[in-house]
Each structure stands twice: as structure tokens, then as C-alpha cells.
């Protein structure tokens, strides 16, 4: 038993038993850390986040939050993991394609889980939701349907929807990849704000400049393994592993960024 805030032990994930996307991942992070996962496409970055959220059936391993095991591979079941749902519900996640519920308004999206799953009253959840939307400058959109919003607005609503559940840790899976370049900053700005408030985060992104700005730690993964784990200052200027250097060279077209 480790005392780490988030503890991933011996995580293995394959699709159909052959295609191994995560191979014996061991990884710890402390509260308030912001871990950015980088690596080539297909290196299992998103799958790692999805496993931490409990969206994937894992072959082997376990995941703990604040010392409590909440996901563990169940060798007897081919469909489900062992899951401690109340603990898992302390994890929040935002996806690349927003995944807002298209038939509900912005406000409806925000208060659905607090009201229906957590038993909070409509008035109290609405009040909290409106406060949050006001903070994000989205209060005028409360009655709008997601289809009427810009991509940046949708993604900020998606983040707000997750935040309203008071998560201990937030997972961001390529949340700016589907956005037009001019809309990226509004979402990244919100994430930087959360960073200032010491929110624990795991982030998968292709944007190395943003990674450098927000990360307290950067993980380079390839072929389902963690190749290198270092602070951004080291990772982006002087990576230890040749594979990391190679990757950064390809995506940045320069040797290092500063």
C-alpha cells in the first residue's frame, strides 16, 4: 500500500488479448501535481487516462486514490473490473469531443449528475451551477443547447460540468485537439486557472508549449510503456532518453524549447 495520492500499480491493458496498449504501467502522483502525458499516436496515452477513469476493462493491475483501491482487474470477469464507485466518482474527466448531452441545455448538463445521482436539490445545484458559469463568463449560455455553442464554449461547459462534482483529480484527454486554433486559448486559460487553484490534473495533449506551461511533471510514453518521467524544465531541454529526444525533435522541429 502506497501513500501516494494516485497510485497505478502493474496496469496492463490489451484489446482482444493481443494488441497490448499498456504494458505493466507503474505510476504515482501527489495531490496538486499536474502530470502531462506526451508521446506518439497509439502510445496508449489516452488509454491510460481512460483506465484511471474506469472506462476500460483492464487485464491486470490496480489503481488507488488517496490510499483506497478503486479499480482492480477482476480475473473472473471478462467484462468488468472491480470498481469502488464512490471513490471513482472523485475522478473527473473531460474528453476531446466534449460529450455534452445534446438534448439538455447547458444548465441541464451541469445539474444532471448533482441532482439525479447525488441527490442535491434542484435549487442548490442550480445556484452552484450558475455561480460557476458566471465565473467562466458563460452565464448567458445557461439556457442554450450545446449545438448552439462554439467548440471552445462547449469544452468550457464540459469542464464546468465535471468541476461541479468537486473532483479530487481532473483528467483531460486531448481537450483542445478538436478546437479551432483561435478557440484553444480560452480552454487552456481555464485549465491554467485550475492549476493556480492547485487542482490535481492528468493531461494528454499534443501541444508541447502548453504542456511546458502547465505541467509540474511530464511523462513520455511509447509502445505502452513509460519511457521517461521528468519535470518539464528537464524533459524539454535535456531529455535523458534518446527516444524522447527523437520524438520532441519531430514534433517541435527544433532541438529544445525554452
Amino acid at each position, binding site marked *: 500500500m502506497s501513500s501516494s495520492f494516485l497510485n497505478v500499480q502493474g496496469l496492463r491493458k490489451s484489446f482482444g488479448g493481443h494488441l497490448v496498449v499498456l504494458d505493466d504501467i507503474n505510476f504515482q502522483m501527489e495531490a496538486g501535481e499536474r502530470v502531462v502525458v506526451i508521446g506518439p499516436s497509439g502510445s496508449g496515452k489516452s488509454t491510460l487516462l481512460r483506465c484511471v477513469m474506469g472506462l476500460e476493462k483492464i487485464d491486470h493491475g490496480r489503481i488507488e486514490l488517496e490510499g483506497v483501491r478503486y479499480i482492480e482487474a477482476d480475473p473472473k470477469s471478462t467484462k468488468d473490473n472491480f470498481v469502488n464507485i464512490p471513490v471513482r466518482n472523485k475522478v473527473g474527466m473531460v474528453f476531446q469531443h466534449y460529450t455534452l448531452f445534446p438534448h439538455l441545455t447547458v444548465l441541464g448538463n451541469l445539474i444532471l449528475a448533482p441532482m439525479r445521482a447525488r441527490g442535491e436539490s434542484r435549487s442548490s445545484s442550480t445556484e452552484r451551477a450558475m455561480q460557476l458559469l458566471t465565473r467562466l463568463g458563460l452565464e448567458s449560455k445557461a439556457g442554450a443547447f450545446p*449545438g448552439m455553442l462554439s467548440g471552445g464554449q462547449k469544452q468550457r461547459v464540459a469542464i464546468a460540468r465535471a468541476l461541479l462534482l468537486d473532483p479530487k483529480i481532473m483528467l483531460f484527454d486531448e481537450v483542445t485537439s478538436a478546437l479551432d486554433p483561435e478557440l484553444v486559448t480560452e480552454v487552456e486559460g481555464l485549465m491554467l486557472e485550475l492549476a493556480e487553484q492547485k487542482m490535481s490534473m492528468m493531461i494528454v495533449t499534443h501541444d508541447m508549449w502548453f504542456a511546458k506551461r502547465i505541467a509540474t511533471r511530464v511523462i513520455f510514453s511509447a509502445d505502452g510503456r513509460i519511457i521517461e518521467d521528468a519535470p518539464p524544465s528537464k524533459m524539454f531541454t535535456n531529455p535523458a532518453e534518446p527516444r524522447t529526444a527523437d520524438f520532441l525533435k519531430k514534433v517541435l522541429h527544433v532541438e529544445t524549447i525554452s
Partner: protein
Amino acid sequence: MDITAALGFLWDYRLALSVGLGNTLHFTALGLVFGLTIGFVVSVVRQAGHPVLKVIVTTYVEIFRGTPVLIQLFWFFFCLPAILGVELGNVFSTVLTLSLYMGAISSESFRAALKAIGAEQRDACVALGLPARVSVPYVILPQTVLRAVPTLLSNCVTLFKESALVSAVGMADLMYQGQMIADATARPIEILTATALIYFVIAFSVTRIVSFYERGYLARMRL
């Protein structure tokens, strides 16, 4: 052909035609209510039911989609009562056939809509900690229904049109009344054209509603 005379002639038979139309709408409405219920249940069973149940309902859907409605009607009129050894009544047989047919075709519409709700929406439900008792009625069901509405309305039009077949087993629907008057008066042109027109106006209006709904409501939500 003199239009005024034709209209006058039709006016004389307005009562018989409206009785026929009333029956057509009556059979269609009952077929819709029972058929949509059957269709929804069948689609859920096919998605998540017991394997044996799945085989049974899939066979049911295939049989009713794979045979002419006319033979289904004949079968439920002449064969089922004999096999069961009980009198079922003509209206009962009519509504039973139309409901089972509607159930089979609408189950496919429900199924397609259920499938169209992406895995991402289900992921979002997990990430928000929504248990099935919340995600099914508040996320999955409303989206299924909203998406299925256009095809279901088309299914309704299909059922409405197929209901004309009940005239072949002697049910006094619009088609039957039209044919009877045509035969009795030897003026088929006016009567049959009027009959066709009545069917057309109703079916066409519903198809307009479908495209209005698709362009307006669904486009706004980008479902």
C-alpha cells in the same frame, strides 16, 4: 370530364367515404400504439436481452419484415382462429396483424437510434458517475426517442398505407368503401382518384412534418 359534376357525385358519397376513412384511421391508430410498444420492447431485448429471447424476437422481426402484409392478414384471419379453435373477431385479427407488422418495422428504427448513441455519451455518463437508473431515463432514452422520431414517423406513414390491405379481407376501410362505391356506381375514376387523394393528403402531410422536424429541431441540437 366535368369537374363540378364529379365533385357533386363525390359529395353524395361523402358519408360512406368518411366512414371508411374513420375505420382506416382507427385501425392505423391502434396498430401504432401497440406496434410502437412492441417495437421498443423488442429493440431493447435485441440490445441487451437473454440470448434465447434475442433469437425469438429476431425471428419474429425477420418473419414480419420478410413476408407480404397481405399474407400476414390472411394468416391471422383464416389460419390462427382455426389453429386456436377460437373465434378472434375481424377487428381483433386486423389490429393484431397491423400491430405485429408495425412492431417489427419500428423495432428496427428504435434499434438504429439506440446504436447511434455513441460510446462517447456512455463514457460521459460513467465519468459523471451516473448510475444506470439515471443515465437510462435521462440520457439514453430521450436521445433514442429524439433520434428515432423521423424514422418512426415514416413507419407510421408505411403502416397507414399498408392498412389499405385490410380491404382485401373485407374490412370496411377507406380503400374498401372506395372500391365498393366504384363498383356500385360504375364511376371508378372519380371515386378512386378521390380515395387516392385522401391517402395522399394525409401521408404527404406527415412526411412534411418529418422533414420539418429533421431540419428544425434535430439540426438545432446537432444530434
